[in-house]
Structures are given as C-alpha cells and as structure tokens.
C-alpha cells in the first residue's frame, strides 16, 4: 500500500461516512539536531515519524483525525473518525463554509539541495559545533552554545477534488551563541542569529555561515557588553539590522495579515489583528518604502514550497505595496469567507496537525541604500541588531523588542557599543516612520513560529535588509 493509497483510502472513507469534502496528508519526516556547549556535544537527537491526517467537511463543520498507521484499515478508520468529529462540530454550528476553487492537479515538487544534510557524517557536524563552542570559551564566553537542525520531509496529499501531490522539502540551518555572566545579568551575542539561520536548502547553508570564523568575535563582544553603557532611554532615530528587521516583519506584519486572525478564528489564543478587511486596498500600513511580498517561490528560503497543505500552488503575491495594505495570508475556506479568490498559505506541522493559515516567506523588498549609507546619514541615533526578546499584543499593534547589541550613532558614525537595547512602538506608526532602506537583503529563516491549539511550530522566511525608523522610543527597562 503506497502513501497515496493510504491517503486515498482515508479520503474515500470520510466521504462514505457523509463528508462533502475531504483531504488527507501522509507525512514522513526525519529530523536531526545536535547541540554543543562549552566544547562538548550536549545532545544529539534523531527522530523519524510517519503518519496520516485526514480532514473532513460536513455541512459547515470540520473534523480532523490523525493516526501513525498507513494500513488500509487504519486509514479508513481515520477518515470515518474525522467525519464523525465534523458531525460533532455541527452541534455548535457556524456560517456556511465554501472553498475557493483550486485546480486539482497531479504534481511533484522538491526543494533544492546540493549537500544532503543527513548524509554529512555526524562526526563532521559534531566537530563543527565542538570547535566553534570551544573557541568561544577560549575568548571569554561563560556559556558557549552551538546548534544545528535538519528536517527532511516527504508528503503526499490527496483531496476529494482529485489532487495527488507529492513533495520533498529539506530544511536545515544552525548557529552559535556566546553568553557572558555578570553580577545580576547576562549578555549574549550570536552568529548569525540566536539559534541560527535556516532555509530550504542542504548543508551548504551551514557551511556558508562559517560558524568557527565568528566564534572569537561574538565571545569577546558578549564579554564587553557586561561593562558597556546601557542603551539610553528616550526617542531617537533607530537603525535596525536585517535580522532584527526580519523579526519585526514576522511579528508586526506577517501575523497581522493572517486571514484567520482577521476573521477572529484565533481570538482566544494567538489573537486577532488590528487590520479590518474593509480597508484592504486602501489602508496605509507604512511609508512608501514598504513593499511586503508573500512569496513561497523563493529558492532556498525557509517558507518555500511547491504547494501548500491544501493543494494550492505556490504563488507570489503583494501584501503591502508602496505602503498600502493589499493582501493577506489565506486558506481556501478563510478566503471564501472573506470574499477573496486566493488561498495558498495553509500548512500543517506534521501529519498529526490540522492545516492552518501560516506565513510562507513574508519579506520586505530591497531599498536603494546600504547600511553604511544609512549610518552616514544619521546624525543621532542607535543601531540595534540580533533579536533577544520579542513581545507584541494580541492585535499585533503594541510591540516591545529587545536586541543583543546596540551601537551609538553620532554624526554619521558608529560609536560605543550599548547593552540591553530595547525599542517599543505601535506597528503602523513605526512602519510609517521608515525613511531609509538598504538593498542588502537576506532571506532570514524562522523555524520556531508558534500558533494554533494544539500547538504547531511553523517554518517561515523573511527577506529583510537594514532600515532606519525615525523618532522611536528606545531604552525601556524594568
């Protein structure tokens, strides 16, 4: 019995039990991670999981069931249970559910991969992390940590409309962090970001990060931060490095444009959105430099795929164009409810999880400047980079983010390092204050986006480059 056979059996059983639509995903995922601390391997974990999840629609009500068994009997039972659960949902019914049309295709897709990350010898991967963490301790770090993670996912999708799609997506990445511990506080520096940079690529991404070459510098910077002056409190011009801007996009744009949040489907947990669909196409989200795209077609970016988890093909769309809000992240049912004609942003964290609206690659198109030009054009401000903490309200408006490091900017030059830099603001006011944007774009990958109940971890991409924001409140502390 093939994976397609199991998925087809589940779908057919759901239909036979009374569903008017059903789809099923078989997923086979292999995962490997290694962490190292202070020159020793701390943990090596490998996981292999395979199973099937089936979704059934009865009237206006959904049901979902998942099993780790691809036998015909188990698949059919899962289909029946999904339909039975959908019938239970109908005891507290909602409005009619439609699905925007998607061409039913038979297709295959695979992400690019030059060096199979699971094929690289463990000893080589261990030596990389051990060497980098040892170098950080030799240069003053009290706590030197290194990490890589690899996911190799094959999935088979079948729907009652006729989809038969298989995909193989390989993802990997890694990074290092140095922490120095002082009296009553700690300071951390990371490369290239805390817990690393990730993409839908092979091991070549990790090699390109050259972790060992950056170990000494970040260790010394973490130590120096313990005695650096604190980031002053007040309003100033803020320059964000690309990694922190990726986080800013993720939290204050990506989640805000999720259609399920806008429709209230996440109201009790992840939250809603300050965006009102009545203003789609007219609302000014940010300055004219702000051009945000939803683009799952970017080769190598972490949020890339061939088809989403309800069979919609990857398509690039605008979310914000010239500062104006023009698009959302949607699924087939949420789009129909909002009278939109596209989905394409629905994914499930494994076979046991319900597909839901998730970010793909939500990124900022490059601007005309460079970071050095932005610094040179700034008379008085602060440059911050690498996220250390992030917090934002349930409407995705009020945020406060902390970074690992800040630098004073005076008369166009980078000056002293500043510790505990934080900044705070209101999303659209912040984005409207962006007046300079670099062209030095990197497709930052975020492998830890939490959403949903039961919880799901999403992998998202965020092309971003350094940018300047005017009159931002910085230096918030306890």
């Amino acid at each position: 019995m093939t994976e397609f056979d199991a998925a087809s059996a589940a779908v057919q059983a759901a239909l036979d039990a009374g569903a008017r639509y059903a789809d099923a995903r078989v997923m086979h995922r292999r995962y490997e991670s290694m962490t190292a601390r202070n020159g020793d391997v701390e943990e090596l974990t490998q996981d292999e999981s395979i199973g099937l999840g089936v979704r059934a629609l009865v009237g206006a009500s959904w049901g979902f069931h998942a099993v780790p068994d691809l036998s015909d009997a188990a698949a059919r039972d899962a289909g029946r249970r999904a339909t039975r659960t959908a019938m239970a949902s109908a005891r507290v019914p909602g409005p009619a559910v439609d699905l925007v049309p998607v061409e039913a295709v038979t297709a295959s897709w695979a992400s690019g991969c030059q060096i199979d990350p699971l094929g690289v010898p463990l000893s080589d991967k261990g030596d990389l992390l051990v060497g980098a963490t040892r170098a950080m301790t030799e240069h003053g770090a009290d706590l030197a940590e290194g990490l890589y993670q690899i996911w190799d996912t094959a999935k088979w999708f079948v729907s009652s409309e006729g989809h038969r799609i298989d995909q193989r997506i390989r993802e990997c990445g890694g990074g290092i962090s140095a922490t120095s511990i002082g009296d009553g506080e700690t300071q951390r520096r990371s490369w290239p970001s805390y817990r690393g940079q990730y993409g839908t690529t092979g091991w070549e991404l990790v090699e390109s990060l050259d972790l060992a070459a950056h170990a000494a510098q970040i260790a010394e910077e973490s130590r120096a931060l313990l005695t650096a002056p604190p980031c002053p409190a007040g309003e100033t011009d803020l320059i964000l490095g690309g990694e922190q801007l990726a986080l800013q996009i993720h939290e204050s744009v990506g989640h805000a444009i999720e259609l399920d949040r806008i429709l209230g489907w996440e109201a009790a947990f992840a939250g809603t959105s300050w965006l009102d669909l009545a203003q789609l196409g007219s609302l000014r989200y940010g300055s004219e430099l702000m051009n945000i795209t939803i683009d799952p077609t970017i080769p190598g970016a972490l949020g890339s795929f061939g088809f989403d988890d309800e069979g919609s093909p990857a398509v690039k769309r605008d979310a914000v164009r010239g500062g104006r809000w023009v698009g959302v992240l949607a699924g087939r049912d949420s789009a129909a409810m909002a009278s939109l004609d596209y989905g394409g942003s629905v994914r499930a964290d494994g076979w046991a999880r319900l597909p839901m609206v998730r970010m793909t690659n939500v990124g900022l198109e490059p601007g005309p400047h460079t970071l050095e030009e932005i610094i040179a054009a700034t008379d008085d401000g602060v440059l911050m980079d690498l996220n250390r903490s992030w917090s934002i309200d349930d409407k995705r408006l009020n945020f406060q983010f902390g970074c690992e490091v800040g630098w004073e900017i005076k008369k166009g030059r980078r000056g002293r390092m500043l510790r505990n830099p934080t900044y705070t603001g209101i999303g659209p006011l912040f984005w409207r204050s962006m007046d300079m944007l670099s062209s030095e774009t990197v497709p930052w990958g975020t492998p830890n986006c939490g959403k949903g109940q039961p919880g799901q971890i999403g992998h998202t991409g965020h092309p971003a480059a350094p940018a300047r924001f005017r009159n931002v409140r910085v230096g918030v502390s306890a």
Partner: protein
Amino acid sequence: MRELELAGQVVELVRRLGGPGAQAEAVVTRADLALTRFANSAIHQNVSESTVGVRLRLHLDGRTAGGSGSIVTADGLRALVERTLAAARLGPLDPAWPGLAPPTPAPAAPPVDEATAYAEPDQRADRVGAFVAAAGGLSTAGYCRTAHRSSAFANSAGHTASGRSADAAMDGIARRDGADGVARRYADRLSDLDGAELGAHAAAKAQAAADPVELPPGRYEVVFEPAAVADLLQNLSWYGFNGKRYVERQSFAEPGVAQFDRSVTLVDDPLGASGLPFDAEGTGRRALTLVEAGTTRAVAHDRRTAVEAGAESTGHAVAGGATWGPMARNLRLSGAAAGPASAAGRSTTGAAAGAVGDADTAALVAGVRRGLLVSDLWYTRVLDPKSLVITGLTRNGVWLIEDGTVVRAVRDLRFTESYPRALGPGAVLGLGARPVRQPDRVDGAWWAAPSVRLASWHFTGGASG
C-alpha cells in the same frame, strides 16, 4: 501493558545489537488527544489524534545519542535502534553522561478517570455549546480538550515503570465591543468542567471590561487573578527553578536565601493530580518544595544537572532536557487564610460589576487604595534570564481599583518587570485562599494559584504606545 513490552523490546534490541556495554533507556507512550476549538461562537476546528511514540537514549563507548519515532513494528523498532547506535558511534564524546536510573519502585499515581480518557467529541462539543449559550449573546472563543496518555519506561539497568494519565481543560473568552473576559480551568475529570459556569464567568468579565480608559504607565499596586499568576509561576519554573540554568549560573535561584516574600510557598506537585509517576529518565516523580515561606529551598534536577550540582535528580527530566533543562510543570502557589467573604459585596460598582468573580479576589481588592486588577498576562518574554526581567502585556481585562472598589475598566498596558523582585520580601501584600488550577498549553502541565496582591508592578507603556 503493551507499552512496557515495547520499551523492553527496545532495550533488549540495544543489548543485542550494541553489546552488553550499551546503556539504554526507552520510553513508549500511546496518546489519545482531542481538542474542540470555537470562535465567533461556533466550533471551527475539531481535532483528535491517536498516536504512539518511542524515545530511546543510549550511551555507548562514552558517546550519547537520542532517537525517537512513531513506527512500532518490529522493523521500525530495529531501525530506530540501529540508527541511534550508529549516531552514538559517530558522535563526539559525552563526558557529562550521568548514567542510568537504578531500579527503584515508582510512586503510586492518582487514578485515571476513564470517562475523560475516552471522551467522545460530542461531550466536548456540548461543553462548548454550554459556554456559548451562557455568554448571553456575546461572541465567544476558546477550546475544550481531553488527553489520555499511557506510558512505560525501561532501561538496561533493569529499571521499569509504567503509568497512565488523563486530564481535561477548558479555556474561553467572551467578547463585547473588543473587550474580552476569560474563564480557564484544568481538571482531572471532564465532568468537572462546567461550560455554562465558565461561559457566564467570561461574559460577566467581558461586560465589566467594556469602555476602557487609558491610564498613564508607571508603577501600580496590582491584584493578579489566577490566570495572570500562572504566568509568573511558569516563568519562575522555566528560567529560575530549572537545574540547567542554575548550574549555568543563569538563574536567580539561591537555595537557602530568603528571595521571596514570607507568604510565598511554591511546591511542584506532579502527583497532586492525574500525572505519570516517572520522568523521562525513569526517576519517580514526587512533590518538591521550591520555596518555603519565602526561602528558596531547591531547584528541579534531572540526572545530568544533578551530577553537575552535586545533587540528586528530583524527577524532572523531560524529552530534550539536555538542551532545555529539567522543568517543574505542576507548580502550586499556596494560598493564605481566607479573606473576609463580605468584601465581595463592595468590591465592584456600576459598569465594572462583574470584574471580580470570587470572594478571594474581592478580599484582596478591598485592601487596595489605588491600583489595578489584572485578569491575564500575554506574550511574556525574557529580557534577562538571570534577573528574570520580563516584558509582556495585560490581556482579557484590566480595571482600576480606588479605595477598595473596582471603579472602571482600563485599556491593556505593557509591563517590564523582574518577576522575583515583584514577589520579593515585603512585596506580596496578600494571597487568596484557594488556588485555581490553570492549564498549560500542553496536557499534563498545570499551574495552581490563588489571586495575589503585589505592592508594585512596573507598567512601561499603554495600549497606544
């Protein structure tokens, strides 16, 4: 128990394929998890899963590797063992390997409620329906969930353990003009969750939260309701009483030092409710006093951090613990003597009536000259792990208290505060008598807390910036 047989098979496979020197521990868990989710007063997501998982950790020739999987056929188990052995042989040395848990009788676990373990989707849906109906026409959202786990442990030192757990939780909001009220409960039995009671509670809070005014940021005296206190307990556990962070000197915890107010006693009580009687390393779980009358007494350890600290494992190993550290996930903040029940009658007036839903909170509110009543905290993130300075926001209802009376709803505020400092000596002005169990995001974890009155909380921003 089938799980115990499977765990034993894995350990035996390691012995056969890896030789007598291979040390192995295996955990097999079957789970039936279900969650019925509602929004806009209708069930919109309704999921269930029947899963099985095997986790193997082995140590061979000074090297350690972990493996896990969902395939429990003979071939699947053999493949798991072979790839984990291969990983161990190729992996770097692990000089901090703490060895296996010795054979020790596991403590008795509380009985499992079979009706909860095998609850049907209709039963969850009916509780959701009751919540929606009790909200009196307000828009509602939330979930009702049930969980059942059957788990067994075996290691090559001859230690075995097994057990089952079942629990249920319900968490919902009612909404009025963008103002939300919340009701949240964790229970060992689904039958203990009353959807109508919770829906009415959330609706009363939402009605009282309408038309909020904005207050300037600054330091305020506060009364935190149990949902907000649960966030304090979770962060104290993850970052403070975590043995890994302790041995790394990233924790504030100093055993023997009076770091908290004398009214604070914190006990991790994993078998105080339905729970598995052993941790990920097979160590028996038991109650652990972390703070006694304000003095820090202990931190949670697994075998690895215990060796580093010169201590014994406290039974708090979790999967992935070498990276994240041991976790206390069943924390109870002990309540104080009951406050005067009569205080409930004079703690709310006019439009804010309904903000205070129980006598415990009312008694604390009655003592506040000027401060804020906070229902819930949201998106709390650590700025510095050692001082445990955290930023986050209020959510699901904030009210201004003046002269012991809740006078009006307030818009959400951002705070930046050191949690241990806010609970420090002299900083806790009162605790309610009755801890209320609040669910974590994962089954099996809960935080039991009464309402708490704190002398000062640093609000660093308003909803509009």
